[in-house]
């Protein structure tokens, strides 16, 4: 089976029913993608398939045949969003962070706080209380740290 992984064409022989997350972590050693709940609820395992965020813990690898898969490793540690997550303390234990960042990457160029909330609704964080995460994402896009009604929610 062939697919594109972080920009490179890869080929593997694996049971097509294997979960995508297991292929990423065990076959390719890409352990940046985390497993939290294993049931689609927490978003820790979020990767992009053809640019759209999905939970890799509930996807059979057969479904990425000829698709483009992007994981947190693609950012190489130097992405502005990664730096902002650190600066704003949007990452504490860090389990949710790769998934949060991958989900945030699919946001448009000028997201409101509401857009950020919606985009990250499928990502749970037990540590930060979310405000620092929303702040990091809004600052990355150069957007005001307020909701539409003008209440300073994440400042």
């Amino acid at each position, binding site marked *: 089976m062939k697919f594109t992984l972080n920009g490179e064409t890869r080929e593997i022989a694996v049971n097509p029913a294997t979960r995508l997350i297991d292929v990423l972590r065990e076959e390719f050693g890409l352990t940046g993608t985390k497993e939290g709940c294993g049931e*689609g609820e927490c*978003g820790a395992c979020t990767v992009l398939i053809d640019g759209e965020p*999905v939970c890799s813990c509930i996807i059979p690898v*057969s*479904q990425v045949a000829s698709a483009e898969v992007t994981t947190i490793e693609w950012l190489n540690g130097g992405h502005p969003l990664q730096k902002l997550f650190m600066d704003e303390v949007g990452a504490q234990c860090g389990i949710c962070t790769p998934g949060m960042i991958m989900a945030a990457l699919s946001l448009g160029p000028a997201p409101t706080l509401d857009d950020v909330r919606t985009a990250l609704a499928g990502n749970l964080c037990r540590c930060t209380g979310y405000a620092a995460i929303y702040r990091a994402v809004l600052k990355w896009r150069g957007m005001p740290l307020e909701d539409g009604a003008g209440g300073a929610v994440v400042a």
Partner: protein
Amino acid sequence: MRSATSLDDALRILRDERRTPVAGATDLYVALNFGTLEQKRFLDIWAVEELRGISERGDMLVLGALATYTSLIRSPLVARRLPMLVEAARQVGGVQIQNRGTVGGNIANGSPAGDSLPVLAAADAVVVLRSVDGERRVLLTQYYTGYRATVMRPDELIVAIEVPPVEGKQWFRKVGTRAAQAISKIVMAGVRSSHPRIAFGSVAPTVVRVSRTERVLASTGDIDEGAGVLAEEIAPIDDIRSTAEYRLRVATNLLRRFWAETS
């Protein structure tokens, strides 16, 4: 697991062997990870492009079985003809689930908590089933024979959902514990016209149209009378998520809100 690349291919495989279809896997793989899945042999239909489109055929809105929640949300056609389905799709899971979960999977999975089901029931939608032997059409309200039991045969696939034109104001609400994650506790979809059409999810073993309530509202327009009949008509499921009494109260409140907001 086998993967089908075309509809013919998929239907031939299902004629020859028993396999469980896999669409977006958002129900199946949760069960698999949980260890509660009995089936072991699968047929991945995700790559069957013919099942993916959203279009108009005659006066029917046609949703391919593999249409995802995201594609419903993005479709101008669905926004124009069936806005209550867009509303329902927006409230399913998070973006990750919306990107993979399909309308065909929601129907076939048969959970009485499926969010698209009350919408499709209220819209008089028709499920299109196909096997190598041909196609048949079943009203969504006649598709379920009991809790998670359907008329679909093992050699069939849901290929599409056909929705006739809907006259009147459309309304959708879901009451659950956590908007993005919870499988809904109570879902209601309604269409307000001279004969209102009202459907509930999670109040019975299957999605239900409350036809007695509809008739009372159509003939008297009296919401108190309608709410009274509703209480007699539905038998809420008393499960781990909430008690029957609570569900009944929520259902009645939803009916009243629908009536007030669509008047």
